[in-house]
C-alpha cells in the first residue's frame, strides 16, 4: 500500500513537473541584507512579487526570489552577482546596491546579459556607459534619477532658497571620503558658483570613521563661509547629531543619507533638528499618491522591523519589479534580452494625486534630449528639472527635519509641505 502510494506521488510529481506546472520566474535580489537601503529594495520587491503571485503570477508562472548579500563590499557584490547568475540561474535581478558595488558587478551583467534593475545607484557614469555601449548595456535599467540630475535641481535650491531667501553667498563643503562623497562634491562645486552664485570657500574631506567632528566644524567656521554643505552617506547620523549638540552657528544642508529614513530621529537621539538634505523621491515627509500610500500601508502591516517606511528605493523596487514583469509578458519572457529591454523602455506608470501628475515611473529613451542639461539619459528614470513638473516628478526634493522631530519637504515649492528654516541657534544673515 505504502509502496503504491509512494509510486503514485512520485508519478504525479513527475507529471506536474513535465507539464510545466512547476515552472517559475526566478528573481534575484542583490544588495545589503543588513542596511535600511538594502532592506527597502528587498521588501519592495517582495511585496510586488506577493501581489503579482496573488493575481495569478506572470505568464502563468509564479515568481520566486533569492537573495545575495553584498555587505556593501565591492568584491562580495561581484561574488553575489555570479551566485545569482550561475548557481541560482535567475531570470531577473533587482539591485539595492550602492554605487561602487554596482560598478563592481556591472562587467558581470554585461557578460551574463541578465535583465537588471538598479534602484539605489545613481551614478551618471553608468548611464554614460549605456550611451556608449547600448548593445551590452541593454539589460541594465536605473530607476532613480542620476546623480547629475539630482545635483542639477539641487543647485536651483541653492539659487532660490540659500542665496535668494537666506542671503548666503559662500559655502564650505564637508564631504566624506567615499566614491559617493567625491562624486557629489564634484558636481556641486562645479555648479554652485556659476549657476547659483555661491562661492565655494573650502572643501573639507573627512574619514567615514570620524567620531569627533568638533575640530572639523571649527575648521568650517574658520573658513568664513556662510553655510556648510555636507555630503554624508555613511554614519551620517554622527555628523548631524554632533552639529546639533555642538550648536554650530552656521546653517548646514546638503546630502545626509541617514536623514532619508524615518529612523533618523531615533538614531540621532532626538538631536537631528535643523538638518536638511537632498532626497530622491518619494522621501520621508513627502505626500504620497493613493497607490504609493497603499504600498506603504501593506509594507507597514507586513514588516515590524526597521526601516519603518521604505526609502525611495523601496518604491522604485515595488513599481520597477512590476514593470519588469510587464515587460517580460510583452517580450515573451526574459530570454530575449533585446525584446525585454525594448519593452521595459516603453513602461510608463503615471500616478496622480488630486488630479495632478505626482509620480511617474518610466525611462528615458536613447534619443530624447533633456532640455535643461541638454543631454540624453537612456535607461535612466524619467525626471523633470523644471517647474511646474508636468512631465514627471522633480529629480529630487529637499527635506528638512525640524527641532520638534517633524520632517517635511521644503523644496521645490510645488511639492513643499513646510518652509526651510534656520535652526534656532543659527543667527540669520
Amino acid at each position, binding site marked *: 500500500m505504502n509502496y503504491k502510494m509512494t509510486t503514485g506521488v512520485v508519478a504525479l510529481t513527475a507529471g506536474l513537473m513535465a507539464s510545466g506546472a512547476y515552472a517559475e520566474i526566478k528573481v534575484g535580489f542583490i544588495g545589503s*541584507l*543588513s542596511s535600511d537601503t538594502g532592506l527597502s529594495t528587498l521588501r519592495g520587491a517582495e511585496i510586488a512579487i506577493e501581489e503579482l503571485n496573488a493575481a495569478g503570477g506572470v505568464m502563468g508562472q509564479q515568481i520566486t526570489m*533569492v*537573495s*545575495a*548579500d553584498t*555587505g556593501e*563590499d*565591492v*568584491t562580495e557584490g*561581484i*561574488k553575489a552577482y*555570479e*551566485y545569482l547568475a*550561475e*548557481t*541560482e540561474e535567475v531570470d531577473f535581478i533587482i539591485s539595492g546596491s550602492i*554605487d*561602487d558595488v554596482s*560598478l*563592481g558587478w*556591472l*562587467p*558581470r551583467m554585461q*557578460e551574463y546579459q541578465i535583465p537588471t534593475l538598479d534602484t539605489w545607484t545613481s*551614478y551618471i*557614469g553608468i548611464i554614460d*556607459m549605456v550611451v556608449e555601449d547600448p548593445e551590452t548595456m541593454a539589460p541594465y535599467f536605473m530607476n532613480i534619477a542620476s546623480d547629475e540630475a539630482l545635483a542639477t535641481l539641487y543647485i536651483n535650491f541653492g539659487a532660490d532658497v540659500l542665496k535668494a531667501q537666506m542671503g548666503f553667498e559662500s559655502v564650505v563643503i564637508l564631504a566624506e*571620503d*567615499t*566614491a*559617493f*562623497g*567625491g*562624486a557629489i562634491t564634484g558636481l556641486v562645486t562645479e555648479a554652485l558658483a556659476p549657476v547659483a552664485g555661491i562661492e565655494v570657500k573650502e572643501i573639507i574631506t573627512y574619514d567615514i570613521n570620524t567620531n569627533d567632528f568638533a575640530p572639523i566644524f571649527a575648521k568650517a567656521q574658520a573658513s568664513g563661509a556662510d553655510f556648510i554643505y555636507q555630503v554624508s552617506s555613511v554614519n551620517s547620523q554622527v555628523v548631524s547629531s554632533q552639529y546639533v549638540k555642538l550648536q554650530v552657528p552656521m546653517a548646514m544642508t546638503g546630502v545626509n543619507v541617514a536623514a532619508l529614513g524615518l529612523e533618523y530621529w531615533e538614531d540621532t537621539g532626538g538631536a537631528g533638528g535643523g538638518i536638511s538634505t537632498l532626497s530622491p523621491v518619494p522621501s520621508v515627509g513627502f505626500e504620497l499618491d493613493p497607490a504609493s500610500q497603499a504600498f506603504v500601508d501593506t509594507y507597514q502591516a507586513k514588516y515590524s522591523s526597521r526601516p519603518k517606511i521604505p526609502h525611495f528605493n523601496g518604491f522604485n523596487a515595488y513599481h520597477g519589479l512590476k514593470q519588469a514583469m510587464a515587460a517580460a509578458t510583452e517580450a515573451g519572457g526574459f530570454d530575449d534580452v533585446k525584446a525585454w529591454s525594448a519593452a521595459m523602455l516603453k513602461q510608463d506608470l503615471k500616478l496622480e494625486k488630486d488630479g495632478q501628475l505626482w509620480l511617474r515611473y518610466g525611462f528615458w529613451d536613447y534619443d530624447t534630449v533633456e532640455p535643461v542639461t541638454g543631454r540624453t539619459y537612456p535607461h535612466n528614470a524619467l525626471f523633470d528639472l523644471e517647474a511646474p513638473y508636468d512631465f514627471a516628478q522633480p529629480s529630487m526634493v529637499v527635506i528638512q527635519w525640524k527641532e520638534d522631530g517633524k520632517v517635511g519637504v521644503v523644496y521645490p515649492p510645488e511639492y513643499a509641505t513646510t518652509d526651510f528654516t534656520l535652526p534656532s541657534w543659527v543667527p540669520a544673515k
Partner: protein
Amino acid sequence: MGLRWYHFALWGAFIVGLALLPELVSKGTLRTIIFANYLAIFAISWDVLSGRTGYISFGHPFLIGIGAYTTAILTKRFDVPVEISIPVAVVVTMIGGLIVLLPALRVRGSYFAMITLAFMELMYQLVQVIRPDLTGGTRGMSGLPTLTRGAVNGFYLSAFLMVSVALSMWLLMRTRLGTALSAIGMNEESVRGSGLSATKLKMVAFLLSAAIAGLGGAFYVHYLGTIAPRALFEINFAFTIIVAALIGGASTIVGPVIGAFFLTLLLEYLRPVLPGAERYLIYGGVALLLYMYQPRGIYEIIQQGLARVRRSS
C-alpha cells in the same frame, strides 16, 4: 631538495583533479573556485614574505594594488595590450616590494606590521587624490579588458596561475634559499653570524613576494573587469589573506592554498543557508576553532592524520 616520488604523485593528482573539475562541478562552484585560486596566490605571496621571514605584513594589498592599478591604468587609459601591461605591472610591484623592504632593514615585529598597514592606507588615499583622471578616483574604473569569458575559461586561467606559482614556490622553498629564508624567521642574528647576508636574503623574499602579488593582482583585476580602491586597500582584504595563510598552515606554501580554498568555499556554501551577515559569524567561528585546535593549520592536521594512518597500517 628531499623530493620523493609521492610528492610528484600528489602534485600530479592535484593538477589532474583541477583539470577535471569543470566536468564535475557546476559553473557557480567554478566561479567560487576562481576566487579561491586568486586568494591562494595572494596567500602564497604573503607566506613567502611573512610566513618565512617572520616579517608580518598587514598591508599586503599595497603590493597587490600596485600590480592591479598599474595594468588597469595602462590598458584603460593608454590602450596598452595586456601582454605588455601585466609584465610591466609585475616589475612595478617589485619596485613597490623594495619600498616595503626599506623599513624591514631597521624594524621588525609589530613595528614592521604597522608600517605595512600604513603603506596600504597611504596607497588607499593616494589613488583617490593623485590623478583621479587616471585612477578613477574613489569610484575606481569599470570596463577593464577581461582575459577570459565564462566560468570554465576563467577557472583554467586562474588554476594555471595558482598551480604555477604554488609549485614553483614549493620547489624553491625546498632549496637552500628556502631554508635560509626560514632561518631569518627563526633567528636573524644567527643567519648574520653564519656569514650569510640577511639583507640580501630579505631582498629576495620581498622581491619574490612582490612579484607574486603583482602577478596575482594584475590577473585578478583583468578577471574582475573592475577596480575600486575600497575593494583592494581594505583591512578585511588584508586579514582574509593572512587568515587563509595561517589557517591553512603558514610557511608551507601548500597550507595557504588549502586555507584559501577552505575559507572561500565555506563562505560561499553558507550563502544559500545564511544569506545575510550571519555567515561571517560562522566563518569567523570555524576559523577561530580550527586555529585554536591546531595553530599550525589544516596542513598540519592533514599531516598528523596521514601519519596516524601510516602507523596503524
